[in-house]
């Protein structure tokens, strides 16, 4: 279809046209502040992160432990029964080497986003976070990792209170 057209209608513009003031344009910035209610379960999860531990939720009926905790079980739709304190260790379930930042800038050293199955949660249940202190070449599925926390006075009740997860060998503290 497109190769039928030799010329496209419209006025092509380049970044230079904007910079050199060749065309008139208006720049605007939307005021898009928001406040997202953390709710009961995620609120408790964030409070736990500030304290320096990971919190999960447990459903007695399904015998499932999930992280982050929810108030309602995803399988039986009954209210969850309790919170469970989980380990800050886990296993890499999947990962990626990411050579672009969130605002699409190229980077030389890749970011290492990974889904980490947290110890104490049901199998295949985990959170997404970054890996650190590791050679990207050495990252593999099944790798054992432990959370590296911010110092207590810098924690603010956010997932970034964990800086990243780093590999460890069993038996090491």
């Amino acid at each position, binding site marked *: 279809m497109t190769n039928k057209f030799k010329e496209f209608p419209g006025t092509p513009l380049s970044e230079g046209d904007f910079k050199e003031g060749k065309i008139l344009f208006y720049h*605007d910035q939307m005021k898009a502040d928001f406040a997202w209610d953390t709710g009961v379960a995620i609120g408790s999860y964030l409070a736990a992160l500030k304290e320096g531990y990971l919190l999960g939720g447990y459903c007695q009926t399904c015998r499932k432990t999930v992280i982050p905790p929810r108030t309602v079980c995803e399988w039986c739709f009954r209210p969850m029964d309790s919170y469970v304190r989980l380990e800050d260790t886990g296993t890499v379930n999947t990962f990626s080497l990411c050579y672009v930042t969130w605002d699409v800038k190229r980077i030389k050293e890749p970011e290492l986003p990974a889904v980490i199955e947290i110890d104490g949660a049901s199998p295949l249940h985990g959170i997404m976070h970054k890996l650190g202190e590791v050679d990207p070449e050495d990252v593999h599925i099944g790798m054992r990792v432990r959370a590296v926390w911010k110092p207590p006075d810098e924690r603010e*009740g956010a997932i970034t209170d964990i800086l990243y997860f780093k590999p460890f060998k069993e038996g090491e503290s």
Partner: protein
Amino acid sequence: MSLLERNPQAPNAWLGDLPVTSRYTAGIAGEKFFRAMKDEGKILGTFCENCDITYIPGRIFCERCMAELDHWQDVGTIGEIYTFTLLFENLDGTQREEPLAVAFIRMGDGGLIHQLGEVDLEDISIGMPVEAVFKPKSKRQGSILDIQYFRPLTE
């Protein structure tokens, strides 16, 4: 037992902002309209011969018959108040001490929305003839604010 109680230690809300920026180009007709305003202090319109309509600000096609319009003309700086309102609040919601008079000024078969100046608020009326007051040439930027305001036409 279920999880119903909020943790009093927990943050109630997660605060954030979305970095949303935009760049709006004046376009082919807008470019011509605002360049004339900036460089010559003129308001331009386009005329459709077929429909006998003068578009202000100028457009590149007729909204009625879709014909391409290239008959640009200087339409002067005088218009007539079609409707107006007094604003007592700023964009950010703060109170203004002096209300701002904003009007739709009918020119040809179109018109401009702009503010009124050099006028006693009590005296503003629909149908009142007004003229554009341009900023000094050095301060014009190719925007609608190159017109400072419209003021009542003095005979």
